[in-house]
């Protein structure tokens, strides 16, 4: 990497090992996803479906791993080794040093996120109908997946810069990432766009009355006056049901909104990281 110069060169030199390992893993995962997608078309056996199923938790965990192993050590390593006293006393400011490191992190994580998102998207669209490849794969679709990788890096960098010790920063990164992701998915996501409530009557269960492709959120049995039935009430074939769901038309807009929110959160944390990183050691 002789094209790099200045503080960016130093940032690359200090992180190239992690970058190469991360890059190989990202490309490896993307390539494996494409292979599984091809198998799902050519030879959709039970084994191939098992492989597809196994990829889901792997992809859910990938952004967290990136934040823990790439984001957290980015700024803490220099403090741990005492080399910040070397780099901070060359000819550039601390701010310059921190900005170069953070820029490199953003560039590398965007690249890795893009590669994995493309792989995941190719895989998702070729999944058989037995997989719910829209709402069921919501967390792995390209827009939000990309934003999660960026978002995982940012608390890593901020925690590393604030705590100045790698292992505690890794733990904090994991904690923040999981807490924000889970809280957002549980509390905020269902309300990113207004839900639709519809009352239907069906004797064959809830699922069959949900419109095709809708993200089903809630169902409540109602009495004849359309008030909620108390628990344990007898349910008949003509019992009305109040359905709350997100229509299929909301899927991609919600992806865009959630991805945007996570990117903004990431940028805010990166600004915090820049501030933490330039404090006296």
């Amino acid at each position, binding site marked *: 990497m002789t094209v790099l*110069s*200045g*503080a960016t*060169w*130093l940032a690359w*030199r*200090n992180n190239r090992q992690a970058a190469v390992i991360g890059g190989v893993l990202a490309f490896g995962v993307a390539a494996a996803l494409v292979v599984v997608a091809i198998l799902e078309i050519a030879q959709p056996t039970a084994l191939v479906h098992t492989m597809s199923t196994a990829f889901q938790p792997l992809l859910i965990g990938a952004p967290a791993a990136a934040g823990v192993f790439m984001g957290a050590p980015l700024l803490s390593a220099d403090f741990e*080794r*005492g*080399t910040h*006293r*070397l*780099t*901070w*006393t*060359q*000819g*550039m*400011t*601390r701010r310059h040093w921190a900005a170069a490191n953070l820029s490199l992190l953003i560039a590398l994580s965007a690249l890795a996120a893009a590669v994995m998102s493309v792989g995941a998207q190719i895989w998702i669209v070729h999944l058989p109908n037995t997989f719910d490849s829209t709402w069921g794969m919501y967390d792995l679709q390209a827009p939000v997946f990309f934003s999660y990788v960026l978002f995982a890096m940012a608390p890593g960098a901020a925690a590393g810069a604030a705590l100045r010790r790698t292992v505690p920063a890794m733990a904090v990164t994991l904690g923040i990432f999981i807490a924000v992701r889970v809280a957002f998915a549980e509390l905020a996501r269902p309300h990113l766009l207004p839900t639709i409530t519809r009352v239907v009557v069906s004797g064959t269960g809830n699922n069959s009355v949900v419109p095709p492709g809708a993200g089903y959120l809630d169902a409540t049995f109602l009495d004849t006056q359309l008030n909620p039935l108390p628990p344990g009430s007898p349910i008949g074939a003509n019992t009305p049901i109040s359905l709350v769901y997100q229509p299929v038309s909301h899927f991609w807009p919600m992806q865009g909104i959630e991805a945007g929110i996570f990117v903004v959160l990431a940028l805010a944390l990166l600004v915090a990281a820049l501030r933490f990183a330039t404090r*006296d*050691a």
Partner: protein
Amino acid sequence: MAIALEASGLGKRYGSTWAVRDLCISIPAGRVVALVGPNGAGKTTFLQLAIGLLTPDTGDPQVFGWSPRDNPTLVLARVGFLAQERPLYMGFTVAETLRMGRELNPKWDLALAEARMRRLEIPLNRRVGKLSGGQQAQVALALALGKRPELLLLDEPVANLDPLARRQFLAELMESVAAEGLTVVLSSHLIADLERLADHLVILAGGRLQVAGDLEPLLEDHRWLVGPTEEIGRVGGTVVQAGTGERQCRMLVRGPAVPRGWTAAPVTLEDLVLAYLGNPDVSALAQPEAVPA
């Protein structure tokens, strides 16, 4: 005379403890300053305040007239710094370490640094972690000198080096000082090394300045006095250290007159430093230079 580094009322506090307190200091350009003091006296804090690694709580140091906090790049370009324990990236090769200097400094003399490595027979393609402690120290010095600083701050640069490596390091340092005429502030516990190098002495005690001045006048100003104990009252000047026996006493004093019947002997730098370190309440701050009326 140009001033390389000066500060007045400089203070730095950690919690409720002052590491450096109310420090007023002025180091003329071109001097080689021996910075001494017991552990915890504030030497490292002072050097880190001077380069801007630390933000002062009171006062603001001036390096060639610039504040390291307000004009960091102006100060950094003029000051070479070698931190305590000589931090380097152990995974870098020597060549990469020198490249780091080139990438991070606006002016950088790669040829000079490489020539220095060749002369010392330090292979450029070797990892820094594989070098001996003495070679690592030389690489760290080459990095600090590569930016062609006007002021060089060295925080215990020869600590933990074997005697030969220490001598080689100091020889390299002195060669650069002679060639470039740069100002050096060197903290060390090894007074014998300082005696050969330094022409200016600064002693810190408990975060305060205890002694500051050019070495030659300081040594001329101090002497050992030996005389009868009962005549101790006749000794003028400042008594830095006194060893009183039943009949005779031996004192290190600062002052002009030798009382009749007393014998005087010159002091060495080591005598001076040990006497002041042992008596932190006595200070010698007035510059011996005459002030024009």
